[in-house]
């Protein structure tokens, strides 16, 4: 039985396994697997970030100075693939692995061995993907969306597709594990509508993953068969249509971007109430808003395809559906602000990143609303306006939420307080330079600079230079984050209390810091007033 499976044959109730291989390669512990995911995600963040530095270095001045165009295209393609599938998604899975069992009073995930497999697939998949850079013909260079027929011309397509299949399998298994855990392993008394918002956000995100990762697998399988097995799914000469790929890809792709932001919403809904010392405003509305956003995300995919020649009726439908998503999102933003309104706020580093999220994600949302308007999108599509939009929602959105969560929960994981001075240094450098990096890109897009180009018209030179300077400094400031984490994990003498933060509520704060290897082996008694949302009545 899966629950009994957490009780190994060996006596591990006294702590972690002794051998390095046994502990880290054969782990069945949600905390260790969470740590593995987070270290992997941080590593991939720096690798993907180095690709971004290469991109911004080449775009610093007009003309080709540093690299061949094909290499630049490999950089843009792999920057996206690494950041999306290697940094953001694994970071959220790592946070989920660490925190969900503790938040619901469960001893571990429902399927601990599958949890381990889900993680260890990823280093293999990314080694494969990054190794394509060194293969004859080079790595994927047609953009992370892999649109045919361009993507079919890449020599290493088979390796890229295999790597993506592996990442998809990892995500699907992880999502099954999360749903099985949340639905079956909650401590008695932990009702669904008493769970932390972060747990709700992951429950809903997991359903999205199960629905759409298989669709990506289907799309890239069809690319594979078109290239190697003589099919014509996307080849007009054989009776197919390249636009068909776009439909299938974006049917995955749009829910995918919500997969990358819903757990972030959950994190912000944990951090803000703690540092405002006030329960989240409108808990049920927050949960229903996440569910609404997830549902609506399935019916907006063609807003990525407004310029391919869709029928007018389709364009109008997708325009209105896309605008509709702004409503539950707006509910969430208003509720975060209402939570802070009239509260006793303090501004520790997690709270700083959370507040920056609320403001800057909203800016990203506004540019998204502009892109939703079909006639406007005919000008913005495939320009830097789109690049600015998605970097605001992903960098100042998802990444800032991940950083906020790391600062928030690091004392629980390590037992040590991080340096608040260096945390604030990281924050202020990040928030200033990220805006220097991405805000000018709105204007570049409006002025007509296309995406995915290694060289550009001299008219775009000055804003590109500003953006690149912002990029280099934003990248450098992430090294502060690395230093803070290493110091907190290994060198900090400042011990954390169990509760860590004065306003923190929830089961995870009732266990010691650092959290013991095994927690809630026996289910806790749930006291409603100890929970953040324990007093919500039906």
């Amino acid at each position, binding site marked *: *039985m*899966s*629950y*009994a499976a957490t009780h190994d044959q060996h006596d591990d109730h006294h702590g972690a396994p002794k051998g390095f291989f046994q502990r880290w390669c054969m782990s069945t512990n949600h905390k260790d697997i969470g740590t593995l995911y987070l270290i992997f995600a941080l590593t991939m963040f720096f690798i993907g970030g180095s690709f971004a530095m290469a991109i911004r270095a080449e775009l610093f001045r007009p003309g080709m100075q540093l690299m061949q165009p094909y290499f630049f295209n490999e950089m843009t393609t792999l920057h996206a693939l690494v950041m999306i599938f290697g940094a953001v998604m694994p970071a959220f899975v790592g946070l989920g692995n660490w925190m969900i069992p503790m938040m619901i009073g469960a001893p571990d995930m*429902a*399927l601990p061995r599958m949890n381990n497999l889900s993680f260890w697939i990823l280093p293999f998949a990314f080694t494969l993907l990054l190794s394509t850079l060194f293969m004859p013909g080079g790595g994927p260079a047609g953009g992370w969306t892999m649109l045919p027929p361009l993507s079919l011309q890449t020599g290493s397509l088979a390796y890229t597709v295999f790597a993506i299949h592996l990442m998809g399998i990892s995500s*699907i298994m992880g*999502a*099954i594990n999360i*749903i*099985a855990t949340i*639905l*079956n*392993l909650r*401590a*008695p008394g932990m009702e669904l509508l008493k769970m932390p918002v972060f747990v709700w956000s992951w429950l809903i995100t997991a359903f999205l993953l*199960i*629905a*759409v*990762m*298989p*669709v990506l*697998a*289907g*799309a890239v399988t*069809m690319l594979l068969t078109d290239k190697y097995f003589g099919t014509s*799914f996307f080849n007009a000469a054989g009776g*197919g*249509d390249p636009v*068909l790929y776009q*439909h*299938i890809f974006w*049917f995955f792709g749009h829910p995918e971007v919500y997969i990358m932001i819903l757990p972030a919403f959950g994190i912000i809904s944990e951090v803000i109430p703690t540092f405002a010392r006030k329960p989240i405003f409108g808990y049920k509305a927050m949960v229903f808003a996440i569910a609404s956003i997830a549902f609506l995300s399935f019916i907006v995919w063609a807003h990525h395809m407004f310029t391919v020649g869709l029928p007018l009726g389709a364009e109008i439908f997708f325009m209105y559906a896309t605008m509709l998503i702004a409503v539950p999102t707006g509910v969430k933003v208003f509720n975060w602000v209402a939570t802070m309104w009239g509260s006793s706020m303090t501004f520790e580093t997690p709270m700083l990143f959370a507040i920056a999220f609320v403001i800057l994600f909203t800016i990203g949302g506004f540019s998204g609303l502009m892109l939703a308007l079909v006639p406007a999108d005919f000008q913005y599509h495939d320009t830097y306006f789109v690049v600015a939009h998605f970097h605001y929602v992903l960098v100042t959105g998802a990444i800032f939420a991940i950083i906020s969560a790391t600062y928030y929960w690091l004392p629980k994981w390590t037992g040590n307080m991080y340096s608040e001075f260096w945390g604030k240094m990281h924050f202020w450098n990040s928030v200033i330079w990220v805006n220097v990096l991405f805000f000018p890109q709105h204007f570049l897009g409006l002025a007509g600079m296309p995406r995915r180009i290694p060289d550009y018209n001299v008219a775009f030179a000055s804003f590109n230079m500003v953006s690149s300077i912002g990029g280099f400094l934003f990248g450098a400031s992430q090294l502060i984050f690395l230093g803070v984490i290493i110091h907190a994990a290994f060198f900090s003498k400042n011990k954390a209390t169990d509760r860590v933060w004065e306003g923190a509520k929830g089961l995870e704060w009732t266990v010691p810091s650092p959290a013991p290897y095994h927690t809630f082996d*026996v*289910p*806790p*008694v749930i006291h409603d007033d100890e929970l953040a949302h324990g007093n919500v009545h039906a």
Partner: protein
Amino acid sequence: MTQQKTDHDIGNRGKGVRLTVTILASLAVAFFLLSFLQIVAMK
């Protein structure tokens, strides 16, 4: 404070996990096949 868990509880949880996994894995396969069926729908 803790609550006792019985073999009955453990058994029920195991059954619940198995059912959840079966349903979700079937959903994943269904969506994979759906992506190919889209071709028929788009024609």
